[in-house]
């Protein structure tokens, strides 16, 4: 905020310009709204996807495969995230308790993270083998 550097007078904005205080309320809301709009505009290509023609009322096997693969990937990623967090917690606690054992703890942590990660990736690989775009 208040800089002690040489150009502090020129680079530190006053309260109104920075949107702080009572006078800058409108400016603050305007800035937030325009930023949100700008972020939405950047992701505009998302809306460009056309709707595929659907057969009304029929759920064929490929649709079920698509739905279940979405759920399977979500469950696999969630379980993988939980397991990796437990491994990281144990590693951090061990490291805090005994910083001298860092090489061993770091090695075990990296190995554990990669092996757990590969579990989620097996699910991904199955999805990519079985779910084809028709």
């Amino acid at each position, binding site marked *: 905020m208040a800089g002690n550097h040489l150009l502090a007078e020129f680079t530190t904005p006053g309260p109104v310009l920075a949107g702080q205080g009572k006078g800058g309320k409108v400016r603050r809301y305007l800035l937030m709204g325009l930023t949100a709009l700008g972020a939405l505009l*950047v992701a505009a*290509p998302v809306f460009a996807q056309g709707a595929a023609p659907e057969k009304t009322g029929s759920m064929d096997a490929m649709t079920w495969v698509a739905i279940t693969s979405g759920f399977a990937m979500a469950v696999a990623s969630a379980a993988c995230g939980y397991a990796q967090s437990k491994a990281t917690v144990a590693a951090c606690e061990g490291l805090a308790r005994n910083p001298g054992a860092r090489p061993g703890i770091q090695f075990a942590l990296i*190995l554990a993270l*990669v092996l757990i990660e590969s579990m989620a*990736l*097996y699910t*991904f*690989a199955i999805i990519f083998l079985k779910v084809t775009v028709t």
Partner: protein
Amino acid sequence: MEHELWFTALLNKLLGGPAAALLAAIGLPPADPAHPIPDYISMEILVILVILAGVLLLRRGLSVENPGKFQHIMEEVLGFVQGTADEIIGHGAKRYVPMLGTLFIFVAACNLLSLFPTLGVPNSELKIEVSPTGLIQSTLGCALAAFLYYNYQGFRQHGVVGYMKHLCGPMMAIAILMFPIEVIGNLGRLLSLSVRLYANMLVGGILERVFGGLVPIGVPVVFMALHLFVSLLQAYIFLLLPAIYISMAVAEEH
């Protein structure tokens, strides 16, 4: 034939005839006789040629008193591989360092290849560009090399009968249960090594294309940085896990 990389075109022009003849001779005639060498094989050949050129360059400049920069770097890499092997395998690790170092450097170089502009292998059905290890064929090859190597070292250390007894577990009484479990476990290692590398590289390519397509400025760089990190990590894992498997295969019970 769809668009192929410049190096593939070069290789097909130079070696297309003999390669097609060789494939036909072993009973697998290529789909397109004018372009028998696919993109990912030509990229792996490029990696091999680059590594060979680097090693030859290194050998010419080797010196004990006055090492150059490249020698320093390769000494660090070799020290890293040797240190990992010593830590995991313990006594007698020096014999396995060449294979482990080759796996490490080859997998790292193949993974990093997709960061270069024209050297990514295109995957036409997913419309992404991926490294040569983003195809199950090449990762299965690397994993098969590691698998055959550690089993060979096990046979060499204990003898054929001795290694089979080693797979039977600690007691002969439960050998009838342990042996199938151990065999399936070993095959599972082959599967996991190959699929882990394949899935990581494929996912890297997919993520970059999906998020880079949404926000073309700035975001692809972030995913390239992620790919760089994941490439080196997966190469380290391809060094670590075969070392662990070797250590388990040549372990002497005392």
